[in-house]
């Protein structure tokens, strides 16, 4: 039996790797990929808590299920926006997106 903490350590590391990526990346798609890591880490946590602490119930699993679906939706829209931005300014660097600011 694998101790629960092991899963949590993995998910925590994955979470903060994602955070690191989100902060350091310049390409917006890369930032989105980092975001996927963060969300994935959270999903693992849901599942692990469900399985170890409340094995008779299904909340964690459904949360993960919904989370996956919402992530898919969010990614779709985000990528659509990124493509649009690319059409407008020719690249997808987050630092260049300042049209709305001025």
């Amino acid at each position, binding site marked *: 039996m694998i101790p629960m903490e092991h899963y949590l350590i993995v998910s925590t590391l994955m979470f903060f790797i994602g*955070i690191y990526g*989100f*902060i*350091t990346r310049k390409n917006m798609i890369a930032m989105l990929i980092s975001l996927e890591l963060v969300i994935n880490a959270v999903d693992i946590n849901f599942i692990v808590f469900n399985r170890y602490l409340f094995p008779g119930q299904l909340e964690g699993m459904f949360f993960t299920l919904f989370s996956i679906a919402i992530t898919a939706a969010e990614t779709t829209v985000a990528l659509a926006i990124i493509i649009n931005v690319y059409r407008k300014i020719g690249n997808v660097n987050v630092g260049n997106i300042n049209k709305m*600011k001025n």
Partner: protein
Amino acid sequence: MEYSLLILITPFVLFLLLGLTGHKMKPNVAGIIGTTGMALAAILSYTIAFQYFFGVGKVDGVFQQIIPINFEWLRFTDNLHIDLGILLDPISVMMLVVITTVSLMVHLYSLAYMHGEKGFQRYYAFLSLFSFSMLGLVVATNIFQMYIFWELVGVSSYSLIGFYYTKPSAVAASKKAFIVTRFADLGFLVGILLLSFYTKTFDFATLTADNASLVVNSTAGASFLGLSVAAWATALIFMGGAGKSAMFPLHIWLPDAMEGPTPVSALIHAATMVVAGVYLVARLFPVYFFSAPEVLTMIAYIGVFTALFAAVIAITQTDIKRVLAFSTISQIALMMAALGVSGFGGHDGLGYMASMFHLFTHAFFKALLFLGAGSVIHAVHSNDMRDMGRLHKYMPISSITFFIACLAIAGIPPFSGFFSKDEILVAAFHHDKVIFYAILVSAGLTAFYMFRLYFNIFWGKEKTYTEHHKPHESPWLMTFPLVFLAILSCTTGLFDFSEFISPDKMPFATHIDWTIAGMAIAVAVIGITVATILYAKGSDKPAQMAKSLGRFYTATLNKFYLDEVWMFITQSVIFKMICEPIRWFDRNVIDGSMNGLAWVTQKSSSAIKGLQSGQVQFYAWVFVAGSIVIAILVLFCKV
């Protein structure tokens, strides 16, 4: 008599019409429209006067107050509400006639006098506005309506004095007139509020009914600084009247107001607006008489003092319009004095009647004098009598009508001024001998300065007039009003005014007291004779006399330095002592605190605006860091 509303509506519609569309009309069309409308209003008021005095007005020998129209405009409480309406009683009907007649004459006269002026249509629009407000003032049913129209009169007077708004002196004069009268109106407003606070009504009929018992009862026992509240209220209201009627020391605006066009001076500053103060006191006469007789006495003395004071100044002035202005101040002061010495009921009410009578006659002969002066100015292009002389042979009609007016104002029978002034003298004689002799002296002075003016303009030394500026008689549009008003000046004195106007609205009989009349005539003749000797041939004697009088002459010439006194009070005392510190406080403390606030905001925002970088990754970092800090706080600082 609901159609009396038309008298008000006609000028108002004219004002809107000429004011809004006048600039699209030809000047003559605008002038004719204005004049026609005024003629309509005049005819209407003659009809009303006829109907009132000889028809519906008199019931059982007493003149009634008829209120054909009255509607509630603003309601504060059940008792206290501001109405707008029309009140017809002997004095308001008489005022209607005076105002519309003089206004019509001025309208006619202006067609020629103002011909070719820039802003001719605007001039007629304001004339209509003025007529409207003045008519509204006299028919006001309550004191607040009167106040509203009172201010409207002030505004239209302001715009007419400042008609030549490109001329700095005209602008200054209009501002002066407005500010001085407005300052006086402050007293009027406070007086109204004081009076209505105690009586809970604005209504003239309620205030004056039953020997003003309402005022007497409601203010009984209340006093302030040793004077009763009724005295305070009526004195403050009189202050408003003194401002409009140019009583000492608030008279300073009237001579300057002569910067306006001459017909305007005739209409506003001779016949109508300046008598508004007299009318106001007359309107509230029962209140004054029964609740505050001491104020009435004060009015009498102020009136007499002003009459003498203005008459003395008038002697030395050389601007013919200013002479007439001071003469106006003096004559209106006489009316005030007559009100002040009046009693109530029967023959005691002679002063009241005399005051209204003099108002009536004065309106016509003073308008005639102003229009005559305007005719002369039109011919000579100067206001200064030193530029005139021997004009009789050039403009005989002006000269003769002016002569008639001078006789009228000097009080020579059978011209109108004699009768009204005589009634004033009789009333004063029965009341207070000091006032009587003062009035007598001022009558003498009046005769003197009026004939000084007349001789200087039409006789005296011939002046050299340039060939193409040869004086000539004015066109008929100007001479017709002169002749018409001259006829009125000859005849109006023959009215038996006591049959129509008295404080208790019951007619009484008067007769001429020939002893007093004889004294008055004698004084007037002396004045005229002296003036004739000094000025008719244009001798050097006046200059020598002026020299021998020395400083007194200079003081008189400078109107006893009253303008300077007022300037000193406003500039050095009020501005320096009160306004300057307030200004400093406003600029430095109030503005300073606001500016400081803005400065702090600006500085702090420019200091932190770098944070708002728009870099989403920086935001994310801050968010993560914040979450970590909160997590640490939760973990380690368990409460």
